[in-house]
């Protein structure tokens, strides 16, 4: 297969398949959660569950000082790769053009120099995340194959994107095809790993926040 054919597969059939699996997979996962339902809370409320739920979805984004003090590196690093990943995904001009073409939505991006730097930062941040996972007794203990897989499929798009942009390792066309495939791999894997948290975290925060709001306690 030539690099061009490879690229057009990645852009065409490959992408369509990946997107389908991603969307249906995620919908299925969310359906699996929501269909279990929950019983109404019969206790006398002290506050609003809805308010508590919505508030927690937002506030839980920041760590509590008491815990931050114990693990500053791990927590800051968590922000770095989340923000870095989202920035290169959503604020890189060619990506925005792609979203525009597929969904008709566009927004301003960041200069490519900054995106390039963010890409490097994200790669290093993900490497640090792996190092922490391999050295912290708790993380090592908790981690399963699925955690390392999720790590790998998150790293690959950033790494290949960086290589493609900087014309490294492979000819541009081939590297771009590899880059797109790596994104597709991420999309296919996401619904079956902890990467579902990209959507389900809102449900989790909502449920805990709802209950806390009802009881009138912190969350």
């Amino acid at each position, binding site marked *: 297969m030539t690099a061009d054919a490879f690229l057009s597969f990645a852009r065409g059939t490959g992408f369509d398949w990946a997107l389908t699996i991603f969307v249906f997979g995620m919908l299925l996962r969310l359906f699996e959660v929501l269909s279990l339902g929950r019983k109404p809370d019969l206790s006398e409320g002290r506050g609003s569950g809805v308010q508590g739920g919505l508030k927690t979805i937002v506030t839980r984004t920041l760590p509590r000082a008491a815990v931050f003090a114990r693990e500053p590196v*791990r927590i800051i690093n968590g922000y770095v790769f989340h923000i870095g990943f989202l920035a290169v995904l959503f604020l890189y001009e060619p990506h925005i053009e792609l979203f525009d073409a597929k969904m008709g939505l566009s927004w301003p991006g960041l200069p490519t120099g900054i995106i390039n730097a963010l890409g490097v930062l994200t790669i290093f941040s993900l490497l640090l995340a792996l190092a922490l996972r391999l050295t912290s007794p708790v993380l090592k203990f908790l981690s399963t194959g699925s955690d390392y897989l999720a790590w790998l499929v998150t790293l690959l798009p950033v790494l290949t994107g960086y290589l493609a942009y900087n014309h490294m390792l492979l000819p541009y066309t081939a590297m771009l095809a590899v880059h797109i495939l790596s994104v597709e791999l991420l999309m296919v894997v996401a619904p079956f790993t902890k990467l579902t948290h990209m959507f389900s975290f809102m449900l*989790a925060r909502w449920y805990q926040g709802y209950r806390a709001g009802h009881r009138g306690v912190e969350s």
Partner: protein
Amino acid sequence: MSSASIEKGIRMIREQIDAPIASFFSSCVHCGMCADACHFYVQTGDPRYTPINKVEPMRRIWEQEYTLWGRIKATLGLSRKVNAQDFEAWEELVYDGCSLCGRCSLVCPVGNDISDMIRKIREGFAVAGHAPEGLVGATRRAVEIGSPMGVRLSALEAQIRHLKHDTGLDAPLDQAGADYLVLLSSMEIMNFPEYLEAIARIMQQAGKTWTISSRAFEATNSGVQIGVSDIAAELVQRVVDAAEELGVKTVISPECGHAYTAIRFEGPNLIGRPYNFRVQHILEVLEEFRQQGLLKTKGKETDRMTFHDPCQLVRKGGVIEAPRNLLGMVTDSFVEMRDHAEMNWCCGGGGGVSANERADELKSKAFNQKKSQLDELGVDTLVTACANCRITLEEGLERNDMDIPVIGLTEMLADHLVEEPGKGGET
């Protein structure tokens, strides 16, 4: 254990899984933050005590039963079913290694209420016969005698006689139409009878009528701690029946953390209907009295003191301001611990841990968290509002050679009440 009871346990765990639990498992990113919130992990350094690991058997059941991918994996033999060895291995984590303090739930970045997950997995462990002996006995006594410690009405009656004799105050039994129905914890009856006297004095000063039910004076709920909802419901029902029969407007939960959340928030859900009376923690009642000007105190303590927030009160019950306002009435030298209010560290004895003798060593390790908080602060007196915290703290302090007395807040307030002439004190 027979495989039949393990099957029952698995079925029970499956029944506990609802949308919130499923969303928690779906969201966990294995970041390990919850470990840093848990005194059992922080003080032992043993990663098995990572909160989310305590519900690993429940996660496997969830994945295998409620997710398509998990079912495929199970069919292909890629995942192992939960078995008797798992129950064996996790029993200690689920009961000894968790005081249901709720601190982990507050720090999980994706919002998992891990503490509640552990509360729920206990339901399965209890029916599978994998609950600690101490808790099993306490639960049996709660059902048969009405108190987890086997406290009988006669003991309470003896205390009431003592109260009348020595202070002239009464603790009226079964008085219909009283403003308040007062519940007690067995710990208070056995170890801290000062609480009853404090209530009698405060109620007298506030001019409120109150009563104790001879049929349902116990506030604690072993059913909740061990994780048997049927029993928990029955224990709640006893209080509800008594309150409704006596026609009281408000039921007061005593200085016990879990008793409060059990009757206040779990109760209506356990019996399947709302109450037609209010439930308040004693500190909430006292705070109301304070706001209405019904509490008159004199004198201030000069000791440097701090308040140990009972976990269930701050994190699951939302009673945070009341103790601070009340302490303000009787002391000017109040200081806060570094992590206080909703981020307070557990004493280590909650959630049934102190009823479980097997857990003693672990409990005293976990106490070191409290010790370091106190060492940093250097106080003369420690105030709290839970009889179980109180004994756990006293024991921990004693073991660590720390000379800090522990007092109940209600009792301390009662000690400062302005005596009204002609009331109390006579025989």
